[in-house]
């Protein structure tokens, strides 16, 4: 696994090919959009999708914690698919999660899917988390007043043209003011970075880092102003990432 360094507000950040962001100076690991218990959310509605999503997502988190040994974990929102999620967790998965969190500092940034602190889990729940020059929030805020921002919510993915046609992967998307993290959950789909809601946050383009097996594939993204301004009314309708 080779992580890619990225400098934001003078700080050195590491983008990990697993889809997490590590800030070495503060020993802080951030992941976004785990959507834990999405499977059981569907099952409760009669769609018995495999119940292994929480297990799988936690299994992906484990090596990251071992690798970076962060003092703080920041979950960037939509950590659970719905507020009932923590209560539906399998006992095994719950104890895995407790074990992973250990005695680290845990910050649950609240998201649209999980607007309340997760029941019975350690850590603080906040709307926004400020640390150093950065603001950690679930959904990015357009414009300069957003500060230096680390966010999630949109599940960005990008398609790169290759010799054999385009290849699509979840990705980080970054410019000089912000980094948007890919969704980390096993059952989370993606939204193209050229779609309006994402383009609105990156009107001047930026750089995409596509997740690969053991490295990131980075490519510049041209300005997306024309995409950002077009049809703003679609902002929510086209967002089918749930």
């Amino acid at each position, binding site marked *: 696994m080779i992580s890619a360094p990225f400098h934001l507000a003078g700080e050195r950040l590491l983008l990990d090919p697993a889809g997490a962001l590590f800030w070495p100076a503060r020993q802080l690991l951030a992941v976004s959009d785990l959507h834990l218990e999405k499977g059981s959310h569907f099952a409760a509605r009669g769609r018995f999708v495999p119940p292994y999503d929480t297990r799988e997502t936690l299994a992906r988190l484990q090596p990251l914690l071992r690798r970076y040994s962060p003092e703080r974990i920041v979950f960037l929102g939509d950590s659970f698919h719905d507020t009932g999620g923590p209560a539906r967790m399998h006992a095994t998965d719950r104890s895995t999660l407790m074990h992973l969190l250990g005695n680290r500092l845990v910050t649950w940034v609240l998201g649209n899917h999980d607007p309340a602190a997760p029941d019975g889990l350690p850590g603080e729940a906040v709307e926004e988390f400020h640390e150093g020059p950065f603001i950690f929030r679930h959904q990015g805020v357009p414009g300069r007043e957003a500060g230096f921002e680390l966010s999630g919510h949109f599940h960005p993915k990008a*398609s790169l043209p290759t010799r054999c046609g385009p290849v699509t992967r979840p990705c980080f998307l970054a410019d000089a003011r912000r980094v948007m993290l890919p969704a980390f959950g096993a059952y989370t789909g993606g939204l193209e970075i050229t779609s309006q809601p994402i383009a609105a946050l990156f009107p001047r383009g930026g*750089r995409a880092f596509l997740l*690969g097996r053991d490295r990131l594939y980075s*490519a510049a993204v041209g300005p997306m102003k024309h995409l950002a301004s077009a049809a703003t009314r679609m902002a*929510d309708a*086209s967002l*089918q990432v749930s």
Partner: protein
Amino acid sequence: MLAAAEAGQSALLIAPTGGGKTLAGFLPSLIQLHRDNRPGLHTLYISPLKALAVDIARNLTLPAQEMGLDLRIETRTGDTPANRRARQRADPPQILLTTPESLTLLLSLPDAAEMFGGLRCVVIDEIHALAGTKRGDQLALCLSRLSSLAPEMRRVGLSATVAHPQALAAWCARDADAGSVRLVRAKGGSAPAISTLLPAGRLPWGGHMGLASMPDVYERLKEAGVTIVFVNTRAQSEMVFQALWRLNDDNLPIALHHGSLTVEQRRKVEAAMADGRLRAVVATASLDLGIDWGAVDQVIQVGAPKGVARLLQRVGRANHRMDEASRAILVPANRFEVIECRAAIEAVAAGEVDGEPPRPGGLDVLAQHILAMACHAPFHPDDLFAEVRGAAAYAGLTRRDFDDTLRFVEDGGYALSGYERFRRLFRDSEGMVHVRGAQVARQLRMNLGTIVDTPALKVRMRGGPVLGEVEEWFVSTLQPGDNFIFAGQVLRYERLDPTAVIVSRGGEGEPRVPAYAGSKLPLSTHLAMRVRGILADPAQWRSLPQAVRDWLAMQRLRSELPPLEGLLVEVFPRGNRFFLVAYCFEGRLAHQTLGMLVTKRMERLGLGPLGFLGTDYVLAVWSAFEPTDVEHLFEEDLLGEELEEWVAESSILRRTFRNIATIAGLLEKKHPGQEKSGRQMTMNADLIYDVLRKHEPDHILLRATRAEAAGGLTDVARIATLLARAQGRIRLRRLEKVSPLAVPALIEEGREWVSGTAEDALLAEAVALVDEATEGEESFTGEVGDETGHPPPPEHPLRTSRSMAFARRRPRR
């Protein structure tokens, strides 16, 4: 047929298309009703097409009246109004005409036993088009249920000529007992008159559209009254339609018909055809079946027919009368297709038909059926298991698979506990299975049916009507302003809105044509064998056109002809690479799978494979180094672990899983109009597949997926046959340059398949290329056309390539 009916015996009537098959199926019922016209449902008719059911109902009313019968003959389809449905349940007509989907729905209702208890006969039309498909599986299960509800019921199957009549009889039979079905073969009418039409001038080396022949095709349209022009793909139908209209100086009414047009549009074309308002219709398989128009004078097949049974089905659409020969013209698009057309004509003349016997039924369909049966009434698993096994398609079903499917319906059936509290079914103290709550039945109705559409987007004229659908991935390759051909017109892509692709009437530039995944039928084994036979035997070349004979003679001179047994492999350098061309003749699907396996092996041997391409006839592979040890590349152990690993990763298996998961009720079916609600609950089948494969590889849905893929989707059986045929009999020719027979493959458009692992290599390559071009410059760069009003200075020629043009959305996976 009458004798079978008198004896209360089931029957399978096999007759060429036309010839009043359907009426023959109904006659015994009409006679019985004439003798004893009692109320209640007497005969049920099932057709694969709604339109056919409606048409038959109309055609049946007249003879019934002539017999002085006072009968109620009604249809029931998705279009039947609610009040008539309710009346049909309370007071069923004597004869009811319906489709497999509507029948499943009726059988899931609590009063199904009352409605069908007195049923005497079920007539299944176009049974050859249903058996072996998922709709057929669904129907087979329903037939078993009907036999339980109405033990007196006899079954009457109506079929076109098929290769495996006994297997079809078993399919039609109760308890899979072919012996209980009287097989009735109608005498063939006049043999069809099939000819070949070659383009004036040069015979094309490659291509499949057949556009070079359009002037000649147009002349034929002018000469005949009414023509159906059949093509092989929807893309081809659009191209052929455009080409014909460009030539249409006489303004002949020529229409277009394919499965991606709106239903209303298709109905309009069918109605115009029935009224005799059209001179020609360009159609895909969407018109293979359909109501009898009577007045079709000729059928023109553009492109090779790919299978004999399919050709016969299409030819039979012309002149539905026993006493006159159907007229058909084959229009091969290239040299290989000339030979294929010749082979098809010979097969028809020899009275041979191809096709596989119906495959075993799918567990996804069984899952849907189990839920439907539970909605009808509580059942005991032992009883339902016995009933299900009574259908030939499920005669080989194991108790384990049945129980696992039942458990899947109950609560997902996962090894990990947790979903018990969400159960849809529960068992009482006597072991009877009940549904829990009325919402289960609602969900069943939402999910009913076995037709799963590929993710498609509606195409809507700006401020106008919906024209049809194109696949999502095609839209992803479009930029606003691009032109494409659809629904017979050139359209300009404006934008994507949440419900549809918005277009306007076309503008400038070369238009593109949407292609549709998996719409090509591979060459049938039977035809392939005949093609090989013709190639290997110069005595048979006499009937071929001069250009083709010269081509084959040149091949014999420069290399050699593909042998009837064994396998010809040519290796030659071209450009900076080496080409390996294997003349397998096993169809596109098999060649694509084989290509992946062979290139994997070449990679291990350090031959540096760069890509491959499978046509219906050959596999071509190109590599950096000269392939040595070619025997090893085609050894039978190719089908070992590598295959399994690749197949599991392949897009085919993912697509199969998505369909199975949808039919089994794991994923929600898309419903027309539902998209309008905006944000819907979507779940990505690929992600589910990956998680399930990792955590419970033996889950019933994955077993069903693998079984289905092995049973034909990847054509593994054909690869196995090929490799066995090739063992020790590989004819290797090392040539200095490309051989005449290899040319069509080398100019064929297409690209290799890429599996998950290879994707990373491709990404690395693409990124490395850009780095090289920009000397690793990391800064964010603009693109030409930047709206900030700072056009890039001309002294930076590399400027555009620094920023990779992102594809708007991905085409596959």
